[in-house]
């Protein structure tokens, strides 16, 4: 892997995250809480984030089902382009932790990080191809002004080759980070290495 990118307070290095609220205690967790943690993420039982959300296991279960179906389902928009959109949303919402995680995932999938450096520097002009620029712009518009979105925002995506199934996958990847960013920003904070 290449050197981490560090721009404007954003980074592609691995960060930790610590909760501001008391997390659940695994030793006294209910069987449902344990089951939902196991369904949600391989590292959930040692993650402050999942141990915070496990205070309401049923809501966490539905969140994880939505998140995993959106980010990992086969077919449709490439997983790298979903991660690209998630990174843009996290950069716009200023979620440093989420931006770091999804920058890393993009790089693992795409084997490059040029567009990540652009997103961290200035999302408004980011994109190494016209297709990437269209995806980035749609992610910015839907994140900042959902009330103003219309057919004219969809057209550039179609013009650059996205079919409607891929546009839907893109909408999902952007929308789910409106959700994820708020949990990460508002229930705890990133922990920087060193």
């Amino acid at each position: 892997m290449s050197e981490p990118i560090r721009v404007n307070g954003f980074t592609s290095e691995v960060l930790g995250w610590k909760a501001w609220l008391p997390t659940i205690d695994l030793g006294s967790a209910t069987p449902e809480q344990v089951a939902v943690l196991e369904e949600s993420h391989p590292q959930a039982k040692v993650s402050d984030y999942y141990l915070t959300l496990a205070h309401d296991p049923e809501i966490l279960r539905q969140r994880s089902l939505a998140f995993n179906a959106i980010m990992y389902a086969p077919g449709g928009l490439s997983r790298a382009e979903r991660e690209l959109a998630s990174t843009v949303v996290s950069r716009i919402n200023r979620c440093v932790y989420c931006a770091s995680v999804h920058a890393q995932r993009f790089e693992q999938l795409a084997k490059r990080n040029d567009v990540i450096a652009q997103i961290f520097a200035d999302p408004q002009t980011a994109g190494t191809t016209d297709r990437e620029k269209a995806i980035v712009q749609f992610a910015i518009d839907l994140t900042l002004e959902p009330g103003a979105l219309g057919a004219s925002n969809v057209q550039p995506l179609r013009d650059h080759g996205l079919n409607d199934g891929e546009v839907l996958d893109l909408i999902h990847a952007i929308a789910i980070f409106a959700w994820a960013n708020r949990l990460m920003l508002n229930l705890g904070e990133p922990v920087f290495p060193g």
Partner: protein
Amino acid sequence: MNSIVEQPADADVLDNLLVIAPGSHLHPVRHARDKVVSATQGSHALFFNAQVQDGLSLSERLLVAYYASRLTPNERLAGYYLEQLNALKIDQALLAKVDADAVESLGDPRLQAILDFTRTLILSPVEGDQQALQVLQQAGLTTAEIVVLAQLIAFLSYQVRLAAGLSALSAAGVA
């Protein structure tokens, strides 16, 4: 349009509100990702379950949703949540204060703290810091209630963008 309140419990809220009906060009596109459809509706049903016994009350949850829809804004979702509030016979004077964005004049410290937190997370989530959680704790919310509230506002931020994206795709017509 029929009252949304009278829709069967298993109806999909976004399909109904956005009129994504079988036969429309968008219906097969959306339902090709049925796991997302069901987890979205499953989340909605949990947050607005009329049988909620403890924690945030149903009227508190619906007020958060209504206020969030007004702030974003999204008229269709605001109208939907308003209908639900009226079905609960919500106090119209309270509703008028929420409509006027006069949360500080509610005279209810718990509800004021909940709606102040809603405003911050909807409009500028990066400003929701540790101090914002302490305000909720001082207003008497438990840890579990704060987690549900944060999840609810975060879910609403997702739902409104999903609705906006689906509406745009519907308005764009057949490719």
